[in-house]
C-alpha cells in the first residue's frame, strides 16, 4: 500500500475505534504493511506514527486496565482542531497578518502558513469580517512575482532550522566578486525592511553571522539522518536581539558616541527609525538623538536619508565626512 494511503487509513481506523486497537489487530488490518513479528514491522509503524504526529495527528499507546484493552488510540480531543475562542479583533490580527505575509511570496514556512490560514476557517467559528479583510490584505500585499531562488532557499532553510540540520552554503557577500563556500548551522530567519536574513553559526569563523537570503548562490541541507539534529543552538543566542540591531550597531569599529539633530516637528516614524536604544533630548526647535554606533558610516547614511531636517552634530570626523559626501554629490549633479 502506498504510504499516504496507509497513513490515512491508519488514522481513519484509530479515529473510528471505540477503544484502543492492539498491535495484533493493526497488523491484521494492514497485513502487507506491518507483516511479520520482527522489529522491522514495529519500526515501520513507529515511523508512520511520527509522520502522523508531524501532520498534527497524535497517536498514543494506552496500557490496558480492567475496562479497556491495551493498544493504540487517537484522543479525539487531542486530534480535532479546537475553536481558538478569540475575540474578533484577535482573529482579525491572525487573518490579516497571515494573509499579508503569505501574499509577499517570501515567508519562511510558507506552505505551513497557507495550511494554517486554511485551518483558521475551522478554528474561528465566527470569523466575522476577518475573512474578507484577509482576502483584501492578500490582494493588496501581493507584490508581483517573488524571486524563485529566495522562495526556494527560504523553504529549504525553514526545514533545516526546524530539524536542526547543518547546511553547506555558497554565498556572495555584498560587493564581493567571488562567492565562498562555508558550512553553517542555521539558527533562524529574520526580516528587515522587507528582506530576509539567515542567522547561522559559521563553522569556519566560529561565530554567528547573518546572510542576506537573496545573495545565497546555492545551499545543500545535510541529507543524512533527517530526524536526528546536527547541532544545538547556543544558549546565549537571541534572534530578536540580532534582528532588532540597527545597521549602525553592526560591529565595524570601537563604540562611538554620536549626536544627531532633528528639526521639529519630528514624526514618530523618524524617531522610531533610530531604534529603541537611542537617547532623545529635547532642544529648542527640535530633538537631539544620542546614539552609540559601531558602524558610524551606516548612521551617516541613515541621517542623510532624512534629508535637510536632520544633521550629524558629532563626532567631528563624521560631520566632516557627511559634508564631503554631499559636496561631491552636488558637484556630480551640476
Amino acid at each position, binding site marked *: 500500500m502506498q504510504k499516504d494511503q496507509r497513513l490515512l487509513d491508519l488514522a481513519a481506523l484509530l*479515529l473510528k475505534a471505540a477503544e484502543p486497537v492492539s498491535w495484533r489487530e493493526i497488523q491484521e488490518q494492514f497485513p502487507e504493511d506491518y507483516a511479520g513479528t520482527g522489529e522491522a514491522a514495529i519500526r515501520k509503524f513507529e515511523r508512520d506514527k511520527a509522520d502522523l504526529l508531524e501532520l498534527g495527528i497524535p497517536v498514543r499507546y494506552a496500557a490496558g486496565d480492567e475496562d479497556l484493552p491495551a493498544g493504540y488510540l487517537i484522543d479525539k480531543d487531542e486530534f480535532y482542531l479546537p475553536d481558538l475562542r478569540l475575540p474578533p*479583533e484577535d482573529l482579525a490580527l491572525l487573518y490579516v497578518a497571515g494573509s499579508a505575509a503569505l501574499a509577499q511570496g517570501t515567508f519562511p514556512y510558507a506552505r505551513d502558513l497557507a495550511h494554517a490560514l486554511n485551518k483558521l476557517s475551522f478554528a474561528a467559528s465566527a470569523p466575522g469580517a476577518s475573512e474578507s479583510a484577509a482576502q483584501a490584505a492578500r490582494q493588496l500585499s501581493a507584490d508581483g512575482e517573488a524571486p524563485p531562488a529566495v522562495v526556494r532557499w527560504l523553504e529549504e532553510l525553514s526545514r533545516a532550522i526546524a530539524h536542526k540540520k547543518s547546511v553547506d552554503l555558497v554565498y556572495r557577500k555584498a560587493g564581493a566578486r567571488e562567492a565562498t563556500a562555508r558550512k553553517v548551522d542555521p539558527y533562524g530567519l529574520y526580516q528587515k525592511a522587507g528582506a530576509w536574513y539567515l542567522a547561522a553559526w559559521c563553522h569556519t569563523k566560529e561565530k554567528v553571522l547573518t546572510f542576506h537570503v537573496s545573495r545565497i548562490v546555492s545551499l545543500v541541507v545535510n541529507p543524512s539522518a533527517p530526524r536526528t539534529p546536527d547541532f544545538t543552538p547556543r544558549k546565549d543566542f537571541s534572534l530578536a536581539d540580532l534582528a532588532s540591531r540597527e545597521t549602525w550597531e553592526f560591529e565595524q569599529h570601537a563604540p562611538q558616541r554620536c549626536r544627531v539633530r532633528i528639526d521639529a516637528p519630528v514624526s514618530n516614524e523618524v524617531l522610531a527609525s533610530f531604534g529603541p536604544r537611542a537617547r532623545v533630548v529635547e532642544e529648542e526647535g527640535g530633538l537631539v538623538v544620542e546614539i552609540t554606533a559601531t558602524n558610524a558610516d551606516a548612521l551617516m547614511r541613515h541621517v542623510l536619508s532624512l534629508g535637510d531636517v536632520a544633521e550629524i552634530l558629532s563626532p567631528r570626523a563624521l560631520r566632516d565626512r557627511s559634508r564631503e559626501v554631499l559636496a561631491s554629490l552636488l558637484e556630480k549633479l551640476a
Partner: protein
Amino acid sequence: MSLPAPPDDGSSRKGRTRHGGSPSKRPARPQQRPAPAAAPGPAPLPAPRVDPRDRLRRILFLVPYAVKHPGIAVKELARRCGCTEKELVEDLDFLLNVGSPPFGPDDFLDVYVEGDRVHVALHQSFSRPPRFTESEAAALAAAAQALGGEGRERAVKALRDSVPRDRRQSFDELSGRIYAGAPPAPDSVLGRLQRAIAEHRAVRLAYHSASRDAETDRVVHPYTLAQRFGHWYLYGHDRQRERPLAFRVDRIRECQPLAERFEPPGDAELGRMRLFSETRGEPVQLRIAAGATAWAVARPGIRLVKRLEDGGAVVEVGAGQEWAARFALSLGGQAEVLSPAAARKHFAEQVRRTLDRYGA
C-alpha cells in the same frame, strides 16, 4: 444529509460503487491510485517528487471543508486548498481508495464529482481538520507578532494551545527561530484598528502626512491592513477625500474608534482595489555605483533597469521623486537621481539644502 445521485455519464467518481463488495471482506484495492483520465497531447513530463505528507495535509483540510460546503465547485475547492484543479481531481481519485479497516463498503469515504461540484458524504472521522502542526502555528504566530496589536499574546497562546500537547515545546522553540519584524505602531493603535476592521467601525486618525509633512485629522472606514515594500499600510475609505487610500501605519499617532458603522466593499469591488491607486507619475531612474548595487537591487520596490560595465546599475523606483531622493541619499553618495529632469532637480535641491546645514 441527502446527496443528489451521481449521473451516469461517467463524469462522476464515487467510492462506494467502485469499491462495492462483501462488507466483511476487504475488497481488492488497486495498489496504486487510479490513473486520471488520459488526455490527448504530448506525454506528460515526469512528475516532480512529491512528499506524500503534502497530499495528506491537503486532504485533511479538503475533506472537512467539502463536508462543510456541500457541492462546492472544483475550482473554488482547489483555490482554498492552494492546489491546481488537476491536483484536486487527483486527490479525489486518491480518496476513493481511502477507508478504514475492515474496508467494507461503508468504511470508505463517499466522494463524487457531479458536473463541476464536489460532494463528500460524511465520514465522521474527518469532519474537522487536525490540530495545527508546530510549524503551521509558529509561522502564523511569527506573522502575528510582526504586525502586533493588543491581542497578540492572546493569539499566540491560543495557537500554542491548538498544537498537540507533545509538540508544544517544539512550537516554543520554532517560534524563536522566525522573526518577521517589529510591530509598526504601538499595540494599542493596532489593537483599535484591528477591532474596527472586525466590527466595520469608522476610526478617527491623527496621521502624519508625508507629502505635507504635517499631522492631519482623518476619518477613515478601515477595510484592511496590508504590507508592501517592508511597510504596513491601513487601507480604507477616507471620508473627506471620498476615496479609498493607503495610510502608512507607522505614521498613525493615534486611533480613536467612532460609533459610526460602515458597509464594507463587496468582493468584486475589493478585487479591483490597489494599495496605491494614484498614478505616481513617471518612474524615477537612479544610477547606483558598483559598491552599493548588490544592496540596492535586493531592496523591495527597486527594479533593475540595466547593469553597467563598471559594476554599477541603473534602477527604477515607482514611489515618487521624494522617496527616490531619500533612497539615493541613504546610499551615502553612491547613487544619484538620473531622470526625469524634475526629479533630478529636486534631488539636487535636497542635496544643496542639506549641505547648507553643514556650513559648506
